[in-house]
């Protein structure tokens, strides 16, 4: 949290420090708060999100994709699909964006200490887990085995390619990367197959293990049964939900799933919590 402004809808200003094109339409922005006091005091937990503005176009909701353990900047990662994301994509290094946040709950990382972790992500859904992955890697000795299963439609759809290489090179993480059949190029060194199938083959042990799943609804739908088969309890599976949001503050009334407000009660939920919700997301 940070210096509260009376106007809860007023964003902090941040400068785009660098831009990385992860894929042809997915971009990472590294942002540095313009106000030094904000820069020093802004903290967040892995899993929280923020509202990013492209002034003149509006605000859009993404998770904070950088790790809480790396201070001085935050990163967001988005696909240009709408009015705001396209406007954000047009901005260049040195230009200003607005940031409101951090909002929402977070991964209860303290509860993961001493346990094995399995990250399962698909496509653009790696960023919400990447923040946690880096935090865990920065605190490597507090966790047991770490497995990352990450897939995308094609090789070029994989985000954070450099980091994937880095993780692959580390001896203390098991990275299983995959692309959908047909998405692999001649030099592809990963698996070929859909994430749930690859996860099943990788067969991480459920013993003392937490699974963190993030991906498109269809991936989640097929991944949960696989995890169940591998012996994961619903309480040991974490995921994040995304809904259209405007305020991020539990007021504008559109992100609710039943009586659960994704912006305040989420975005992080256990599979048990998700199953208890009305299926309207």
């Amino acid at each position, binding site marked *: 949290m940070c210096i509260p402004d*009376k*106007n*809860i*809808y*007023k*964003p902090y*200003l941040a400068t785009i420090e660098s831009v990385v094109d992860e894929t042809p339409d997915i971009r990472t922005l590294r942002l540095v708060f313009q106000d030094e006091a904000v820069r020093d005091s802004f903290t967040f937990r892995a899993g929280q999100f923020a509202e990013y*503005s492209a*002034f*003149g*176009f*509006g*605000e*859009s909701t993404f998770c904070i994709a950088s790790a809480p353990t790396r201070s001085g900047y935050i990163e967001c990662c988005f696909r240009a*699909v*709408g009015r705001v*994301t396209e*406007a954000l994509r047009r901005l260049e290094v*040195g*230009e*200003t964006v*607005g940031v409101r946040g951090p909002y929402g709950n977070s991964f209860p990382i303290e509860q993961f200490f001493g346990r094995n972790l399995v990250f399962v992500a698909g496509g653009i859904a790696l960023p919400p887990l990447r923040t946690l992955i880096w935090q865990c890697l920065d605190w490597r000795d507090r966790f047991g085995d770490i497995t990352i299963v990450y897939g995308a439609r094609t090789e070029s759809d994989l985000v954070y390619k450099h980091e994937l290489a880095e993780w692959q090179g580390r001896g203390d993480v098991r990275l299983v990367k995959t692309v959908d059949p047909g998405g692999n190029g001649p030099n592809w060194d990963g698996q070929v197959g859909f994430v749930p199938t690859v996860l099943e083959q990788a067969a991480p042990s459920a013993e003392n293990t937490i699974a963190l799943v993030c991906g498109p*609804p269809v991936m989640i739908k097929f991944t949960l049964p696989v995890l169940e088969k591998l012996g994961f309890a619903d309480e040991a599976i974490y995921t994040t939900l*995304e*809904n*259209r949001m*405007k*305020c991020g*503050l*539990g*007021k*504008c*009334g*559109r*992100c*609710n*799933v*039943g*009586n659960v407000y994704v912006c*305040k009660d989420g975005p992080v939920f256990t599979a048990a919590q998700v199953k208890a919700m*009305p299926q*309207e*997301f």
Partner: protein
Amino acid sequence: MAKTLSLDNLHRLVDALLQEGVRVVGPKRTGTLTVYAPLTRGEELELNELPRRSAKETFFPPCETILSFEKRDGRTTVSDPDLDRLPETVLIGVRPCDAAAPGILDAVFSWDYDDPFFLERRKRTTIIGIACTSSDDACFCTAVGLTPDARQGSDLFLVPVEGGGFAVEALDAKGSALKERHAALFTAGGNTVPLPLAEPKVEPLDLEKIRAWLDGNFEHPLWKEIADRCAGCGACAFLCPACHCFDIVDEGGEGSGCRRKHWDACGFGKFTMHASAHNPRDVQPQRYRNRIMHKFKYYRDKFGQTLCTGCGRCIRWCPVGIDIKAVLDEINKKS
């Protein structure tokens, strides 16, 4: 001890407040309709008609600017409204169904994060409620726990009495202060026999039973049955004293413009639609279900209150005649 206020003196009270520089908002006839509007003199007050739109807009206007931005020489600056300069306001002539709503909305607007736009206006506004002596068959305040003379939400309360004029009751410090400041206008004694209240003739509802039914019937043929006719407009939400959903948009241009917060409605298809075109509430019955759930279950679950005061506006103005009271009656019967 009971004080009374003649209608003339009520008008004088408005004039005196205006003289002091207080902003006075009350039911006012403009063209064919009566709405809550800033008054310029006491006689403009129109107490015989329930205003078309609810009083919520005094605190939560249809559209308000939350900040402005300007890009110049590569630098972006943002300025926001000076909420400390929001004027002191007296909201006068408010019927119980409208007076109760802002207090219900306090819960969501102060839930964890305080929305200063709503709450600063709340802080600066004194509500003068008035007991209701005229109703129609769309009214159902008594079915949702209010009455035609419910004091809930009012700081000062007027009860119309026989022979004209009102019996006056201060309900809190704000109300007392206002009464003290204008003590000369209030007379002791006088006729204090209240006029007959406009008790809506409706079947009672058991809100707890309804909540319980909603809890177990997210999927139910009823939703399609009722809401297939729903046209998907926002009339019900925009006229409702308790609907609080809003959208935030940037208007103007890239160089300079304003960020605005404006009313939105769960009946609109666009309301929950993702940029990817995926829509969690894809068809009208799902949206209508959310409206009922939000009012009678979710808000109760979260804040222990019902997001409905029975004013009947959504019934009167639904383009396709959806009658929320009939819907509730049906649910009440089922549970």
